[in-house]
């Protein structure tokens, strides 16, 4: 019974974190699925968005959840601009160079943050930060519950966007057949940048949901990029459902690993899954053979 009382909160917290991981990974998997880009700067952009949310709260007093309509479009615009102005230009369309360009971007963003904002860990304390909800004896912090629900809602909206709109249709067409899409008049460069922008917008939404129970720090990107990649390769590169399931698996692994192995070694669990999946089943759980 005591076991269960420790286990249940760990599981619920793991699921809540997992939902946000899934949201971050959805952005990554969308970018991969359409552009075939492994966006190494994904975590760094999340870190940047976390700082954005942090400063909106501390300087302007805007609640993280109410910051969604500001941060999401801003991150979308940043993603769109990055793809058109930097990534597409600097890589000359060579796939092996794209990874290096996004690696360069992530290094710039991470260290820019370190330079500007130093290595202090920054947290916020909105009034609801320490309120909890009772789930059959397990008390889960309100921000965790909100992030869980919010991440699922955003995921649903993203799914609708991809499945039910003309833009989504163009994105899906491009993901499947680039030349064919071009032939029927789809503006390839524009849709590529739109996809990248939407992927980064997901990161913006994740940052708003995450900050009340998390922190802003220049090293966040480094942590998250591996987590996001693990989720994506676990679920299968380019797979939506895979990213969702993968997110929950990784969230649970992390929270249970931390519980049983301690904070530091607990982190290894994610890497071990990452390496194991890459080695034994690089197509992931839901991916198709390339």
């Amino acid at each position: 019974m005591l076991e269960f009382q420790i286990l249940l909160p760990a599981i619920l917290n793991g699921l809540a974190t997992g939902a946000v991981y899934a949201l971050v990974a959805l952005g990554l998997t969308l970018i991969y699925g359409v552009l075939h880009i492994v966006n190494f700067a994904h975590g760094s952009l999340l870190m940047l968005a976390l700082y954005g949310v942090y400063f909106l709260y501390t300087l302007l007093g805007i609640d993280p959840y109410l910051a969604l309509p500001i941060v999401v479009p801003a991150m979308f615009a940043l993603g769109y601009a990055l793809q058109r102005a930097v990534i597409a230009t600097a890589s000359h369309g060579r796939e092996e160079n794209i990874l290096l360009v996004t690696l360069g971007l992530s290094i710039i963003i991470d260290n820019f943050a370190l330079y500007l904002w130093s290595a202090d860990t920054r947290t916020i304390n909105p009034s609801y930060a320490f309120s909890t909800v009772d789930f059959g004896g397990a008390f889960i912090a309100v921000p965790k519950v909100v992030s869980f629900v919010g991440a699922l809602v955003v995921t649903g909206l993203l799914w609708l966007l991809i499945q039910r709109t003309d833009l989504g249709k163009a994105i899906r067409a491009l993901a499947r057949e680039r030349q064919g899409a071009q032939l029927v008049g789809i503006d390839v460069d524009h849709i590529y940048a739109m996809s990248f922008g939407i992927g980064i917008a997901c990161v913006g939404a994740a940052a708003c949901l995450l900050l009340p129970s998390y922190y802003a720090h220049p090293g966040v990107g480094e942590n998250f990029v591996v987590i996001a990649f693990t989720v994506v390769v676990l679920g299968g590169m380019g797979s939506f459902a895979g990213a969702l399931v993968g997110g929950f698996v990784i969230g649970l692994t992390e929270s249970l690993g931390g519980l049983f192995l301690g904070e530091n070694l607990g982190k290894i669990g994610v890497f071990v899954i990452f390496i194991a999946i890459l080695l034994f089943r690089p197509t992931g759980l839901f991916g198709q053979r390339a």
Partner: protein
Amino acid sequence: MKTPGLLAVAVLLALAPLPLLVHSDFWLHFAIMTLYFSLLGQAWNLLGGYGGQRSFGHAAFFGTGAYAAAVLQVDLGINPWACLVLAGAFGAAAGALVGALSFRYDLRGSYFALVTLAFAEVFRIVADSVPFTGAGVGFQIPLRQAAVNFQFHEKAGFYAVILALTALATALAWWIENSRFGAELVAVRENEDAARALGIDVNRTKLWAITLSGGLSGFAGSFYAQYFLYLDPRIAYGVEVSVTALLVPLIGGVGTVLGPLVGAVALRALNEVSGTITGGAPGLNLMLYGALLIVILAFLPDGLVSLGARLRRARPAGRLGHA
């Protein structure tokens, strides 16, 4: 392409008497760090340049060599020179391990880059958690300045060692350009399926390349440990080493003998200049690395060594038809 190899040998030979001419510690340190960068860059270049297997995690091999050298000499009392050799062996073993796993399961391109990065991170977390590396506190090699301990009172001693190691790495690159093994490695880079169809054992070729590359990285790690006498998991397995290893040949010219040397000179020079301007503020150095990476890929994807050919091509007059 035989001239660059000879040129590289000539350059390194010409550099040998440098400590007799230059007595400033600043410039000797600059020369040492440049050669150290080019050793690390050449290690990456053997695998990433000639073999086309671009690793993001050379720190895994570098750090293993560095820790092997440090721990074996301090805890087991092995002579540091023997530790240099052992560090190479440990680095090579780490390379072989990562290679055996990832090539066996046919990881290519981005997947290979990601898995090497993950290995480096796992090694870093392990080094952060186990007791014999000193964990997060770091690992100190006691100061015992004597040539027999691979610790020199004068910088000239370190200079001689790193020059010899870099010469070895350069010679390896030259050998690769002129040997059957190198031809097979380049064939694998250009088209794995075609190489396999020609009867090349693709996995074995890549495995040898990553083992050699890991060994040289191990040497670099051991040298770093002796020169600075301090290691912690971030130094040994951090992103900075992995990025330096790939940035040096990218700046100089990937898959060329001379590229890592040229790239190391350029990067160190830039480091010094930026360090003077910014006063070494945290993060700015790496920020510069990132910007440089993008700029090089955008404007000079074949590196600085291609600059000569570019300029020649740009000169229009008196050339016979040539695309």
